[in-house]
């Protein structure tokens, strides 16, 4: 079973986070300075949104909207000890919600097969399990459960950032991840039996 500790996940160092915050403050006065952050995170946010939408043009629109909203609301950004990208993820998550709310569609998770296999091979489950079995089991998860697992395993976010993105406490983020994984595991053992 996968461990819940944060040791293997990339945690941005404090200096880097503070430098980003300085760029944000400069960008409030001079929006052209924001390009540094735009260039740094465009690809990350695009990939994240695409995984949730599975449509290239819609993803491009939503990603552009995410950066536009970020730039427009830079004044409201507060330093919380997490990288600036966490704020972008939060905006992106809200934009994706809005997209599904307006279009009344079933939420999609378009997962990269190679990455998925890596995650499964990375001692996620006790027994050897096929990707297709995990996908079938994942279909039983709710949107919220799938979302937290995606942030944890595909985006490799530490709990502090997941908590910030989903606007919950860190303890709650840990608990929800653990419960979602447990549910997935139960579904899998039921299917194997």
């Amino acid at each position: 079973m996968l461990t819940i500790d944060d040791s293997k996940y990339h945690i941005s160092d404090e200096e880097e986070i503070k430098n980003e915050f300085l760029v944000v403050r400069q960008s409030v006065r001079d929006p052209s300075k924001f390009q540094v952050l735009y260039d740094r995170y465009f690809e990350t946010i695009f990939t994240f949104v695409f995984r949730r939408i599975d449509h290239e043009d819609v993803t491009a629109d939503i990603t552009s909207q995410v950066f536009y909203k970020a730039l427009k609301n830079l004044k409201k950004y507060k330093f919380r000890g997490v990288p600036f990208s966490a704020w972008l993820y939060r905006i992106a998550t809200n934009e994706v919600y809005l997209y599904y709310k307006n279009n009344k569609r079933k939420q999609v998770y378009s997962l990269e097969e190679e990455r998925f296999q890596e995650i499964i091979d990375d001692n996620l489950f006790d027994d050897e399990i096929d990707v297709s079995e995990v996908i079938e089991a994942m279909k039983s998860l709710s949107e919220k459960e799938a979302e937290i697992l995606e942030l944890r395993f595909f985006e490799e976010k530490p709990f502090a950032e997941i908590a910030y993105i989903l606007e919950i406490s860190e303890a709650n983020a840990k608990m929800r991840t653990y419960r979602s994984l447990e549910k997935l595991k139960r579904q899998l053992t039921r299917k194997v039996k």
Partner: protein
Amino acid sequence: MSKIDIRLRRQQFTKGRIQRHKNYGSLLEKQKNSHRRRIRGVVLLAFIFVILTVLIISLFNKSNAKPSENRIPGVEIVQSEGPRTLNN
């Protein structure tokens, strides 16, 4: 019925394909236009506020204006031109 639709895809996005969608210039332009619109809105609101304030003040002044000194209704006070002589 499942709550979410899980799809597997073989291909990952290449950097070049994502770069095609990057356009900081248009983002900046959009932000500047929105900023200009916001400023115009604020100026318009300030203008409306000033006009309303002036209107309210003038209405208030009118209602508080001094009443007429003529206290007997129907009687007009005329200033005398001095005593008349009987010679004429």
